[in-house]
């Protein structure tokens, strides 16, 4: 077997060895339940609090504003359902966008069935939410605005500060799904007027199955998980101590050399974009040309289909992803690519390559070289390339 190049870091990332090293201790010698009063329990409790401090610091929140969850999806579900339930007396209108993750969109659809009203904002061709439409959509009964920080497919970063300002002026709660953004850019929840923020560990070289919801002090939010008194009685269930420790460690590593990390990934990203643009014709870069995540590259290749592209790349040892219908098991291509106005056949031919700081320039060049071959091969087979 030849080379292996992993460029699907928006799907998940490799758990760093330093993270695993920290976690292991909490499987063997320090296995106490954090709710127990003896030393072993207190050790676990301390470990959780240390991680909580790290996560809080990372987004400029206070420690008691961070609640650990099972991941991004739970955080999104909790934020939306919790706010909707707790603010019923105030109103039943929620504003979101058409390009949110399914954890938001499907939760919104569920809430619609429960009698809530949801406005799905359009985005422009770069995937940026229409701010004017947002302002016009606000009504007296609007209780929540939920707009993702950065898009998982096309990497577009939203004008979060502007949205936060609007929400604050109107006295509406503002939630953002920052699962992809954490690790890609600096986030300051105070400066950005964010009331709730979802994050996930496995997108930043932490373990899977752990995330957090930041909830600004004083925010009215119903519980989602009912049971014990964990997480200040806000999120029941014995804490996943080793995962929380891993999350904390992943954040600490990221914090330590954040600027270098971003600079390195951005350079790789720009090299990859340039390499593809210089060597392949009839393509389109999807997402914002400038305001995009440091690790995100998304192209559509005319005349070919995404699943074929992924399979041929896989044969060359390259792991990537696509917004093609065939990779999702549904008839339609990605809702995000549709929302930015791509024609179906162009959306079917999309490829997402997402980098990490473990990738190298040599890997980027290898991917470009293989991509040229694979795209040519598929175009030879295609009836659309006349």
């Amino acid at each position: 077997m030849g080379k292996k190049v992993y460029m699907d870091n928006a799907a998940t990332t490799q758990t760093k060895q330093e993270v695993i090293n920290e976690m292991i201790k909490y499987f063997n010698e320090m296995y106490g339940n954090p709710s127990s009063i003896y030393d072993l329990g207190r050790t676990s409790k301390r470990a959780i609090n240390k991680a909580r401090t790290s996560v809080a610091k990372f987004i400029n929140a206070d420690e008691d504003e961070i609640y650990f969850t099972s991941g991004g999806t739970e955080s999104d579900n909790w934020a939306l359902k919790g706010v909707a339930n707790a603010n019923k007396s105030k109103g039943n209108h929620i504003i979101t966008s058409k390009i949110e993750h399914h954890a938001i969109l499907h939760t919104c659809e569920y809430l619609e069935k429960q009698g809530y009203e949801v406005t799905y904002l359009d985005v422009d061709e770069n995937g940026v939410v229409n701010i004017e439409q947002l302002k016009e959509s606000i009504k007296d009964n609007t209780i929540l605005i939920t707009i993702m920080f950065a898009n998982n497919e096309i990497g577009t970063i939203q004008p979060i500060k502007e949205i936060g300002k609007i929400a604050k002026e109107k006295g509406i709660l503002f939630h953002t799904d920052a699962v992809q953004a954490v690790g890609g850019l600096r986030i300051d929840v105070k400066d950005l007027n964010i009331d709730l923020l979802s994050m996930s560990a496995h997108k930043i070289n932490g373990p899977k199955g752990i995330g957090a919801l930041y909830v600004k002090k004083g925010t009215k939010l119903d519980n989602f998980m009912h049971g014990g008194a964990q997480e200040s009685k806000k999120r029941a269930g014995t804490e996943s101590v080793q995962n929380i420790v891993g999350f904390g460690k992943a954040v600490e590593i990221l914090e330590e050399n954040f600027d270098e990390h971003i600079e390195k990934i951005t350079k790789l990203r720009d090299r990859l974009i340039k390499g593809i643009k210089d060597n392949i014709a009839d393509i389109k870069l999807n997402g914002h040309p400038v305001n995009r995540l440091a690790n995100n590259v998304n192209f559509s290749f005319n005349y070919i289909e995404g699943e074929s592209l992924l399979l041929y790349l896989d044969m060359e040892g390259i792991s990537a992803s696509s917004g093609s219908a065939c990779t999702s098991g549904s008839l339609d291509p990605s809702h995000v690519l549709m929302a930015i106005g791509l024609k179906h056949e162009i959306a079917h031919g999309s490829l997402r390559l997402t980098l990490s700081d473990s990738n190298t320039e040599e890997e980027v060049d290898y991917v470009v070289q293989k991509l040229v071959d694979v795209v040519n091969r598929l175009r030879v087979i295609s009836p659309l390339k006349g």
Partner: protein
Amino acid sequence: MYTEKVMEHFRNPRNVGEIKDADGIGMVGNAKCGDIMKIYMKINNGIIDDVKFQTFGCGSAIASSSMATELIKGKSVDEAVELTNKAVVEALGGLPKVKVHCSVLAEQAVKSALYDYAQKNNLVVKGLEDFNPDEDVHEH
């Protein structure tokens, strides 16, 4: 998720290309759904001497086209009309349920090319009486 046979035909698709002076050409599917198949046939004395395909689509669409062309090459028009999507699936060692429509598309592409040949030559081909080349086979 794909059988070794599917992957083998996907890796090395047979009969790729076009036939300039084809006697029958069939194109089915649409870009909206993400798969289009085009089949070209050279037919002499009722025998398919040569067949080529071009496909825009996923791995199973390419493998299904490749297999379908293999199954009808050298066969008579009457035999080729009998090709079913089931036969394509079986020859491929199976397809995932969500991909079975690719084999239906391959069957339709073959029939469509045969229909075109019959139309051009004022022939009545048994089995194509009710064939509608514009029928949408996307039921996935």
